[in-house]
Structures are given as C-alpha cells and as structure tokens.
C-alpha cells in the first residue's frame, strides 16, 4: 500500500494534505493516524482529476467552454453543465490512471468488495451550502469498473449548474478547479448514526450527544428516521438521556450494489439500537477525537454486524463554536457574597 502522487492511503495522509486529498480524505487520514478505527481506504488525489481533465482537453477543449459562458445566461449554463457532465461520465480515464486506481481498489477490497465513493472538497468554502452539489456519496459500489465510474461522477459534479454558476459569479479560474475522491471499504452497519462532542441543543461541552438507528447511517444523516438519542457525560460516563424512538425504516446494502430501504421488524422498532457498552465506547471515541483535534467535533459512526465500532467521518462542530460563550459568574471579593444570589432576592 504505497502512496503515490495519485493515490494517498489513509495511513499516509492528514489534514495538512488537504489541498491534494480534500477535507474528508484528510480527516479520515488524521483519524487513522490517531489510532481511531476507520474503515480502510485511500484517496484519489486531485492530481488524478487533473490528469483526467488534461486528457479530455487534448481531445476537445473543456475549460474554455466554461470560461466563455455568460453567468447571467442560465439556459446556456444549464446546457453546458449537462454536456460536460455527460462527457466526464462517459469518457474513460487514461489507461495508466485507470490501472493505478483499479490496482489500489484491488489491494483494498479484492475483486468485488463493496466500497463507498465520496467526493472530498479541497477548500473550506467548498463545504458551504453553495457547494452542496459537490458532496456526492455513493454507497455499496462493487467492482473496479463501477468504482471508476463513480469517481468520474464525483468529478463531474464539479460541472453541476450550481458549481459552474458559483465559479462564474465569483470569477474563480477554471484551472484552480480540483477535487479529491475517497474510496473506502463499506461497513455493513448493524447500527449507525452521528454524534456531537458537545450538546447540539445547549452547547454544553461536558456531554456527548449520540443519535443512531438500525442499519446504515444514511437513514439518520438523511433525516429519514427519528433516531434514538443518548446524552452521555464525558466526565462521569453517566447516560443522562435515553430517548428511544420508533424506528420504522432502515437502510441496508442491496445485493446488486447500492442501498435498499426496508421496514424495521416490529419487535426491533422500539428497542434501543445501542447497548450501554457501545454507548460508552462511542463516548470514549468521541472524547479521543475531540482531544486529537482540540475542538468540538461532529462525527459519523457505525457499529458493524460483529459489534465493532468505526468512525466514518469527523468534522469541526460549527454552530456553537461560533457563538461567544457568556460568562457564568464573576468571582466575588468575599466568596461568601455568592449566597446572596440565593438568599438575596436577586433571582
């Protein structure tokens, strides 16, 4: 598993490599290097995208078509987007590049083990809502051809109407456009979800808030189920909230690749999707990740059919971290005066 200019294995990359592996890829590398269980995988670096585009440019101009567009002419932008996306999806990669990516896939997963293929944006503002179209994720992708296809789909999303309009509007050069793609083994999740290393409701930094449901985490992330919710003290480990909800559907891997939505059997709908031991293991992992990054995190996790816990993603928590924390109380010259807040009618 040797990393190259095109391929970066998780163990070899970190957040500093963001320009070539993207935020998601860098974060997965960072977690792997911190000793946190992450499904193994690699990143198809931005250099691969550039090699692909250069090959396309060689046969017919591509960037020039975008640069010639009038940002206010939405019809023209839409038509161009449609054309370029179809071109990227349908065109083969150069042989050497194909071989290198297929080789890494074979090394990772053998001939046809399922992987997730996800786009990994290289700039902070690319993670904004304005670039939402960039955040493509394909689950349960099997076989080298399909993997290569989905990588091209991720790349093609750079030419979505939203992306094109954004670049045109901000005058961003087409030569600076790049995208990394993560290829990662799938976890056949028994239970999956998200967790926050501070309360999303109150901002309380002393708790970890966990949300989870049966099956793959896409049902939780996509808001298709009301997940079970647990709140755990980071300091005492006490589980102070257990909201067990009725979990009606679950996402499971489809036999032919992709994801199926199934009904949850009645007897499993209202039982907790995590044991206390698993909740406690998740909390420990959350603490470890937060300590590693030195700031509150928003984490995607899964527990596989064998009960092993893995993290799929971790990114900085942004909502509460941007608020100025109000001071709680001021020290008093005479500490006894604090009691007047109880007895003194100051409440």
């Amino acid at each position, binding site marked *: 598993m040797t990393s190259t200019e095109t391929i970066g294995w998780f163990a070899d990359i970190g957040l500093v490599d963001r320009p070539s592996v993207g935020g998601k890829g860098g974060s997965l590398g960072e977690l792997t290097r911190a000793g946190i269980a992450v499904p193994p995988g690699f990143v198809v670096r931005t250099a691969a995208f550039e090699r692909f585009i250069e090959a396309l440019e060689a046969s017919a101009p591509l960037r020039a078509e975008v640069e010639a567009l009038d940002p206010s002419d939405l019809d023209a932008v839409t038509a161009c987007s449609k054309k370029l996306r179809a071109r990227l999806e349908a065109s083969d990669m150069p042989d050497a590049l194909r071989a290198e990516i297929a080789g890494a896939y074979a090394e990772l997963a053998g001939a046809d083990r399922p992987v997730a293929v996800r786009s990994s944006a290289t700039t902070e503002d690319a993670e904004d809502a304005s670039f939402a179209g960039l955040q493509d994720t394909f689950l349960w992708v099997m076989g080298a051809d399909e993997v290569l296809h989905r990588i091209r789909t991720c790349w093609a999303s750079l030419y979505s109407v939203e992306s094109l309009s954004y670049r045109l509007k901000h005058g961003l050069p087409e030569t600076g456009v790049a995208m990394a793609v993560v290829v990662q083994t799938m976890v056949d999740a028994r239970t999956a979800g998200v967790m926050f290393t501070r309360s999303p409701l109150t901002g*309380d*930094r*002393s*708790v970890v808030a966990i949300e989870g449901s049966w099956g793959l985490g896409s049902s939780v992330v996509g808001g298709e189920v009301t997940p079970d919710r647990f709140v755990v003290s980071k300091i005492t480990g006490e589980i102070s909230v257990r909201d067990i909800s009725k979990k009606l559907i679950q996402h499971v891997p489809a036999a032919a690749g992709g994801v199926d939505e199934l009904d949850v059997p009645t007897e499993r709908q209202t039982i907790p999707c995590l044991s206390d031991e698993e909740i406690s293991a998740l909390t420990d992992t959350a603490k470890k990740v937060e300590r590693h990054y030195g700031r509150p995190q928003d984490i995607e996790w899964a527990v596989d059919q064998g009960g092993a816990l893995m993290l799929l993603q971790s990114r900085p928590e942004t909502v509460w971290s941007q608020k100025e924390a109000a001071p709680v*109380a*001021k*020290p008093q010259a005479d*500490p006894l005066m604090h009691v*007047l807040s109880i007895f*003194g009618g100051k409440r």
Partner: protein
Amino acid sequence: MNAPVKPVGFPLPSSVKVIPGTEAAQASYPYFMQFAKGDDERFWFYNSMHFPEPMSAFDTVTGEAAYIALGAANTRVHVLPTVLGIDQRIINGRIYIGGNAVTDPVQIGRRVEEFQQRGLYYYANWEQLYAQWKVKMLALIKDAEDIKIPELPEFDDLASVHAGRGIAQNHFVLTAYHKTIEGYFRMWHHHFEFLLLGYGAYMVFFEFCKKAFPEITDQTVSRMVAGMSPEFFRPDDELKGLARLAVELDIDHKFPEDGKADEVLKSLEQMGEPGRKWLEAFEKARHPWFNVGVGDGFYHYHRSWNDDLSIPFSAMPGYMRQVREGKTLDRPIERLKAERERIIAEYRDLLNTDDDRAAFDQMIGLSHRVFPYVEDHKFYCEHWYTTLFFNKIREFGGLLARHDFFASPEDIFHLTRFEVDAALSDLMTSWSTGSAPRGPDHWPPIIAMRKAAIAEWAKHPTSPALGAVPDVIDDPAIVMLWGITSESLNAWLNEDVTSSEIKGFAASPGVVEGIARVVKSVDEIGRLQEGDILVCPVTNPTWAPIFRKIAATVSDIGGSMSHAAIVCREYGLPAVVGTGTATQRIKDGQRIRVDGSRGVVTIL
C-alpha cells in the same frame, strides 16, 4: 406544537373533607394546625417526605417543634432576606406545608442588611461554630438521657423529707415531662442552626453548574459535594466491622440468616473468650452508633437499632458471607475522594473563562465547608435524639399505663403533647388527693377511636398538593430537600395516571428491572427479598441493611440531595425520587423498570 395546557391547580384546602367517622380524631389536633379561612389562597404540599403516614396525636410534636425552629432561624435569627418560615396544617392525619416568602423590596433590603451580620457571620465562622455545635448537641443528648421519670410511691421518699426538700415527688413528674419536651424543642433549634445556610451555599454551586453545563445531572453536581462524611455511613461501617470480627474469631456460624438477636447474644455469652471479645466490640460499637433510627425519626415507632436489634442482626449474616467470599466491605473512601477530585477538575477545565473558574472555586469551596454539617447533623438530631426522646415519652406512657390510664405504654402516643400534660396533672392530682384519677375512664375510648381513624386515613390517598400553584418556588429548602419545583408540580398536575411511565428526579444512575415491593411503612421492610425494587413514600438511608438487598429505589418524594439519593449513589443503586404518586400507581409484585439516569419508572 400545541400550546401547553395551563394547569388548573390542585384542590383547595376547603374542598378537602375529613373522612366520615374520623371527625373527632381530626379535631384532636391542635387548633393552629387545622386548615382555616385564608388558607385557600395559599399553596400547600403534602410533606410525605418526612411524614409519609398519618400522624398520631403525639407525633405532631415533631412538626410543631421542627417548623418553629426552622421558621425562627429563617425569620428572626439569620434573617434570610426573601424567605420566612414554613406553616403546617394537618388534615386526615396528613401534614401539608407551605412556605412564606418576602416580596416587598423594602423589607428585602432591610433583611439583606441584617443577614449580612447574621447569616454571613455564620458562613464566615462556620468551622468554629460547628465545633461548638457538636459540644452543645452532645450535652443536650446527655441531659435528655439523664432525665429521670419519677415513680409515685405510696409515701414520699424519707430521705428527701429529712433533707427538708419541701417539694413532693409528684412535682417532678411534671418537671421531667416539661424538661423532656423542652429538650426536644431545643434540639430542633440546634438542628436548624446551620441547615438552611448549608443548603443555600450548596444551591449557589448547583445553580452555577446548571448554567455552565445545562445538561449536567443533579446527581453529578451532588457527587462533587456530598457523600464524603465519615459519620453519615458510620453505623453501617460499624456493622461491617462487627461482621468482619465475627469471621476473624470464627464465630460467624452463630449468626444464622433469620437468627433472633437475643438468642444470638445469649449463645455468644455462653461460648467463652471469642464470644466475649465480640460482645465487647459490639457494646463499644452500639454506643453511640446504633442510635440510628430505622426511619427518619419523626414517628414514635421509628425505633433505633439499639431498640430493635433485629435490623442490624439481619444484615450481619450477609456481610459475613461477603467477608468469607473474600470481598472487601470497606467503602473505598480514598478512591471515592480521588474520583470526586477528578470530576471537579474536569468540569473546571471545561469552563470558558478565568472568571468562571475563579467563581467555581469559590462556590465549591463554600459547599465543601458547609456540607459536613448537612450530612452529619442527621445522626445526632433525627436519629440519636429523636429515638431517645420517644423512649423517654414511652417511660411516661409506662407510668400512666401502670396507673391504668390506658393499656399499653405505647398508647401515650395517641394523646397530644398538651393532653399528656393534662393526664400527668390528673395523675399528680389523684396522687395528692388520694382520689382515683379520671384518666382511666376518659382515655381508653378516645385512644381506640384515634387508632381507628389512623387506620382509616392510611387507606385513603391524599393529594400531593393543595391550592394555587405559585409562579416561582424560591425557598432553597423546598427546592433542594423536597424536590418541589414549578416543573415537578406541573408534572404532578398533568400526570396521566393511566400511563405506564412515572417520572421523577433522576437520583442515582443505572437501569434495573425487578419486582416492586410497595412499602408504605417501616414495619413492612421485612417483606423485601433479594433483588426487589423498593417503592416507598420516602426513601430512607437508615434502612442501610435493606439497601444491600434491593436492586433499586423509587420514592414519592425527595430531591437529588435527599439522603436517600446520596445513599443510593453510595450503594450504586438506581433511584428515582420525587415521583409524587409511585406508591399509589405501582402495585405490589408488579414488574417495573427503574431508570435512575433519566428519572423514569416504567410498569412492565
């Protein structure tokens, strides 16, 4: 979302009827404890934490003395700026209480000035005043122990005649009684000398934590402060020590699981050196540490371990078994202390600013200073003194029973403290005049009627509160001790009694399923089997031996700082307290789940 339904309020006091047939028993309570005009405008709640069972006439002395002392401390001594005392009323044997608040800003201002030289003086001189308190309290206990209840012989003592005492023996019946009552009232003043101040300091820290860490649980806050007093757990520790000694001396086979204490003691006396050694240790341990009540000490039938050795003796075989299995019985005090320090340090680290950390240090420092009193006073006041006091009253009961006022010394507890005074005067008069006392004809039918009334009242549930719900509940004692907050009242009001979920305070974490044993009075604790879940009006820490057996605790009343909550955390038992109605809604023998982390009990 629908707008929350505005609570309609609880029944008005005037709408609560005396249960038919018990009117005369209700009338026996002092007039100033009866609901009257004006009481409908106030909020009252049933103090089932301290008085979970209908009160016998005499036992109302506890409510009287306690609220007199509490009110005096708040209103006149420390001069708490915003709260005065607590009024009490009794109906169908149930004690309802209601706090008095100061709302006029001018009055609050005046009281703040007074408080600064009174209440604050106590905080500033806490350690010295508390050291003085213990001396005072032990002297008071000694005084009470020394009270002699005179017999009334046919002729007065010759020696006192020759000494020219000039006072006949019957006079000392009255002085002894008055001294006994006076000592009890005095004890309650001592009890409240520090208590509310202690709770106030704790509440400051509690509110800080809730603001800084909105999702911190009550029990985590109290873990940072409570549970470290050596005296609080001393009786149980002594018991464990005796169990260990018995195993060491190889005499543990003399303690069968269902052994009777007096038979065990007799067999030890007969077995020579090892038995003698154990009995010596036993005598040393039981004075004073077995002066611990099997209840909260507020009822005459809450006897101490010394009065009823069956409780400690039923616990010892279990401890002995654990010793034989090589388990350590010691509470790992050092480990618990280190854990508490870790928790404090980690929460402190999460604070945002240096100011917050400095305020946190000041507040927890103050809490740690006041808390030993909050935990320790119970042993001296509620356990040692109250059981001693009721035993003294029992001696007067014996005197009256020997003069045929009633059949059993215990019957005295169906007279009010004023009526006992009258009965003793009747006895003194008859001893003087040589006529027959009137009591033997007067009291027996009244006592029978009152006993029947108490039995009847016990069958009827009573509303957890009466009157209008106040906008805010600001009294530190009411919030901390009784767990009564606007939220808990609304929960009581809006409770769906058909639901299988009962909500309360999360008092001690963990989830357990088991068979519910609904135990409404202390006489019933023998029914608890290994692994049962105790469901009771008020959890009581002094049932310590029982806590070894049970799997969890559920109570009608109690906050996160009630002693039950503390003891359950100590024993690692899940507990949900302050449910309002658990004993009414859970049936004995039902399977229930107790989630002590969330404060929810589910009937399965």
